[in-house]
């Protein structure tokens, strides 16, 4: 009988998937992810890919903002840097897509470190404003460095390929996205339970005490910026390779806000929360679209009101979450998990 989560010893306690129960559900979920493209249509697969890019980007932002406590408004810019790096490497220098992905991550990480330098001196709102500089600097560069970025026309990107096989459909690209999501989530989950991840959280919790522990604040804050931007760069590179085009319009300021919303709604300082947040922020607008189409077909007279109404509903849902579950979807998840772990003997 399973009536609690008693650990045999503390070594088991350090396992990433603590119980066979979790392992079982995780395996089931993986099977679903693998079976999904065989069941879904192109539109659903399109959404699935979008969710994947959002997950990678959100995990990255959560490492910086949720775990290390450094609020950043530069995430969209870092996504853009990765996107352009990959596009330029592939189209101009003939580098393969597969190599361009880690390289985009690295270039983005470098950009992130530069933008992260003020984090040693300033915190909170001030850091927010300092990172906003990234949005302006890189946004300007995307538009005006025409010899490289082709300005507002943008760059057309050939689909990735292995031999003669081209990943040019929603379905084939899904496998690439899935691979990188698994790598990205796995890496983050491990990182946060090792030396570096603990140092990140220590800095967020109490930077003074972190210093006493021998944590070099500057080095670790910059590392957080670098890793976070690496994720952003990879997400951006994958995204535009999927879209087969990149223009400056892909990286508006609102994109940073959306990513911040993902990690807040999902749960700051939770890797799994970033996934929930990404799914929520991508899926809910789609669901609202479907619903509003339905309403439109029943009551065509209301068509004009539907679009603003959608925004209001979406906005209220986010606010609702913040009020009723400030610790995000991750908290709801952990309650559900607790319930089912103990079920039916939950006393």
């Amino acid at each position, binding site marked *: 009988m399973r009536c609690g989560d008693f650990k045999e010893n*503390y*070594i088991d*306690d*350090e396992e*990433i998937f603590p119980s066979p129960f979790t392992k079982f559900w995780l395996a089931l979920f993986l099977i679903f992810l693998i079976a999904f493209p065989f069941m879904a249509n192109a539109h659903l697969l399109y959404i699935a890919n979008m969710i994947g890019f959002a997950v990678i980007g959100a995990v990255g932002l959560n490492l910086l903002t949720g775990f290390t406590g450094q609020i950043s408004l530069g995430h969209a810019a870092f996504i853009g840097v990765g996107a352009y790096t990959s596009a330029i490497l592939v189209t101009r220098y003939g580098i393969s897509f597969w190599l361009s992905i880690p390289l985009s991550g690295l270039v983005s990480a470098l950009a992130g470190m530069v933008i992260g330098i003020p984090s040693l001196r300033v915190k909170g709102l001030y850091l927010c404003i300092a990172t906003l500089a990234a949005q302006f600097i890189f946004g300007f560069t995307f538009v005006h460095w025409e010899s490289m970025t082709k300005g507002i026309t943008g760059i057309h990107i050939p689909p990735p390929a292995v031999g003669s096989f081209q990943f040019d459909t929603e379905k084939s690209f899904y496998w690439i996205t899935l691979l990188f999501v698994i790598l990205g989530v796995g*890496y*983050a989950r*491990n*990182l946060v*339970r*090792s*030396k*570096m*991840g*603990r*140092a990140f*959280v*220590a800095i967020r*919790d*109490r930077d*003074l*005490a*972190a*210093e*006493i*522990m*021998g*944590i*070099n*604040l500057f080095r670790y804050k910059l*590392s957080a910026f670098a*890793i976070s931007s690496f994720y952003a760069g990879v997400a951006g590179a994958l995204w535009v390779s999927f879209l087969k085009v990149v223009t400056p319009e892909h990286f508006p300021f609102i994109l940073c806000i959306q990513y911040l919303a993902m990690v807040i709604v999902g749960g700051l300082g939770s890797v799994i929360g970033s996934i929930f947040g990404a799914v929520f922020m991508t899926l809910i607008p789609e669901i609202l679209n479907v619903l509003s189409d339905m309403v439109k077909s029943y009551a065509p007279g209301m068509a004009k009101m539907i679009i603003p109404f959608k925004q209001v509903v979406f906005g209220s849902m986010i606010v609702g979450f913040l009020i009723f579950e400030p610790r995000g979807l991750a908290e709801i998840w952990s309650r559900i998990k607790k319930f089912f772990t103990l079920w039916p003997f939950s006393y």
Partner: protein
Amino acid sequence: MTQPVAEEIQLQVEEIHLSFGGLKVLAGVSTSVKKGEIFSIIGPNGAGKTSLLNCINRFYTPDRGKIIFEGQNILKLKPHQLAALGIARTFQNVELFKHMTVVDNIKLGHHVHLRSGFLSGGIYYGKTRREEMALRKEIEERIVDFLEIEQIRKSVVHTLPFGLQKRVELARALAMKPKILLLDEPATGMNLEETEDIARFILDINEEWGVTIILIEHDMGVVMDISDRVCVLDFGVKIAEGEPAEVRQNEQVIKAYLGQVDLTYSRLGA
């Protein structure tokens, strides 16, 4: 009590001056701490005891003076470099990572002794895995058992009463494998029994682990019982130093505490 023959000086404080604006907090304090001793700093409120510790672990930069730890002038270093030298510290008001569990707090104490980086940490296989397992084992067997905090190891720190938080902070400092441990009022806010526990822990840490202790404490019973030497500060000046018995008799010390006449005897434990 017979002292070991070789009395090596581990920490030397020379002519430390510290002021904030016009306020002189430390006015030329000099002292030295021997390897392996329990060295207490006492004095009335506001005497500058905490400020002296803050200078030692580099939160404050004195206007003048030198602080030499094992032959090295540590005033040239940054706070985060002291952990690797073996200087650990606890605080008067507890500086824990309040939203983390007790075990995670203690793990952070071990930070500088861990080798895994951002690559191996993210892969968590081989080196990192072994290291993390060994770390947990050491924490459980050497620290959690020793300080008797098995019951709370999974608790989030801010949910614990102040007395236990102080104990967790001590545990975290021990995980740093310090050579010298600076304790700022470790028994504050504790009842008699807890105070006795803490005094016993300090003695054990000193004797069994061979850690030098600098102790600030208002509980004179504890100070007089366990200290090898006591240094008395008053208004930023050292007014006495010596073995507990000598200090207790010192005229100036009695005077410094005379603000509270009836307290003098109980406070000095005489």
